[in-house]
């Protein structure tokens, strides 16, 4: 397989890479850039554990080949924190006990983040739609919704 040159901006840092055609964005992020916060749960776009924000939209990074997205911007959970300061969403997840085993957490955060970027004051239904593709087996989703709802209110008042 012939490698393909791709340049990507991941978490505000630019990378020039040579990737295999069958290298998924998930593989690039985990195996090359060691962003292990991006989790692999099903490999077929059903669980959402590998969710990242690609050019402003939440996508399953297992459903994208890296060679497809030359010139794109990618944000992973590692990029939510800026200069040691956690994103309000991360703080809200902590505050609302929205985490149990934590495996779905990075994907949940990225789906929620993509939603809030687009719509800072979503209603509950919009929040549910944003994370409908993120399976969680521990929490029953309740405290995750509470965490996202709380950070919308904060955003709204700012």
């Amino acid at each position, binding site marked *: 397989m012939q490698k393909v040159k791709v340049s990507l901006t991941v978490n505000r840092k630019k990378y020039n890479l040579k990737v295999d055609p069958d290298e*998924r964005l998930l593989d690039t992020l985990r195996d090359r850039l060691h962003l292990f916060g991006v989790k692999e749960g099903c490999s077929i776009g059903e669980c959402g554990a590998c969710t990242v924000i690609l050019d402003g939209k939440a996508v399953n990074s297992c459903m994208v080949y890296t060679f497809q997205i030359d010139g794109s911007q990618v944000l992973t959970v590692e990029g939510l924190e800026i200069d040691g300061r956690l994103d309000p969403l991360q703080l809200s997840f902590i505050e609302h006990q929205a985490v149990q085993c934590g495996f779905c957490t990075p994907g949940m955060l990225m789906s929620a983040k993509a939603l809030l970027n687009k719509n800072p004051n979503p209603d509950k239904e919009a929040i549910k739609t944003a994370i*409908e593709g993120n399976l969680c087996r521990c929490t029953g989703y309740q405290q995750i919704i509470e965490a996202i709802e709380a950070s919308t209110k904060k955003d709204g008042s700012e």
Partner: protein
Amino acid sequence: MIEFEALKPQNLKEALAVLKEKGMDIKILAGGTDLLVEINNNSDRLGDFKYLMDISSIKGLDEIENKKEHLIIGALCTHTQISESELIKRNFPILIRAAKTIGSTQIRNRGTIGGNINNGSPAADLITPLIALKGSVILKSKNKKRELPLQDFITGPYKTDRKEDEIMTKIKIPKITSDYQSSFQKVKRRQAVAIARINLAVVTDIKKKRFNDIRVVFGSATPTAIRFLKIEKRLKQAHINELDLESIAEQTGQEMVEITGERWSTPYKKPVVGNLLIRALQEIIREVQ
């Protein structure tokens, strides 16, 4: 394990030239939400291919155009784009209802209308309403362009009439007048990220309280989504307040069985297709009254 080379043409012209040359060895990749699953699963449906040609970033194929007689949707429009389009909302709200039920937010952000059609799944949620809207597809090859009704483009489960050197560029939907009503129904095993157990699109105009031009299309009930012509015929000119619901439901089930024969799922689907049609008709009737 499937191995392939990547092709990434810069524009449509280049893509078509490459297809002309080695189309038989090429799989076309758009949003990837079906294809990457099949590659991951080593699916038999993939057949042999040497190249994966990514067209997802080709410019000009993701636009929604408002023509006088038609609405044109670029094949690379994502489900999210369709869900959020004011133009589509105004003209074909049924498409929005269907698009919103596809996969998850992440899937809708990547998956495209062209991909949904070309994958040819019997349960594809856009194919059903598009057939009911009498949509057609535009295919381009290096030297040719052709248009054919979507109904004819889908030739079987996961089978289409696309030639190896062609790319689907657009989906064309004839506009309907404002007295048309529509309904989309989908039966799911869970509330989200669910493949349709059955879906149904009904598009009709009602004149003098009678169904006039009525189109009834079921997905996931027959090998490919198709119009149920017999029931359409029966409903045409039927008075909306004088419908024999029970017998319409019954006949719908029979029409399905005539097409599929008795299958393991028949005991469930036979009554439910009828129930769904009744529900869709009632929804439409409620809307006009």
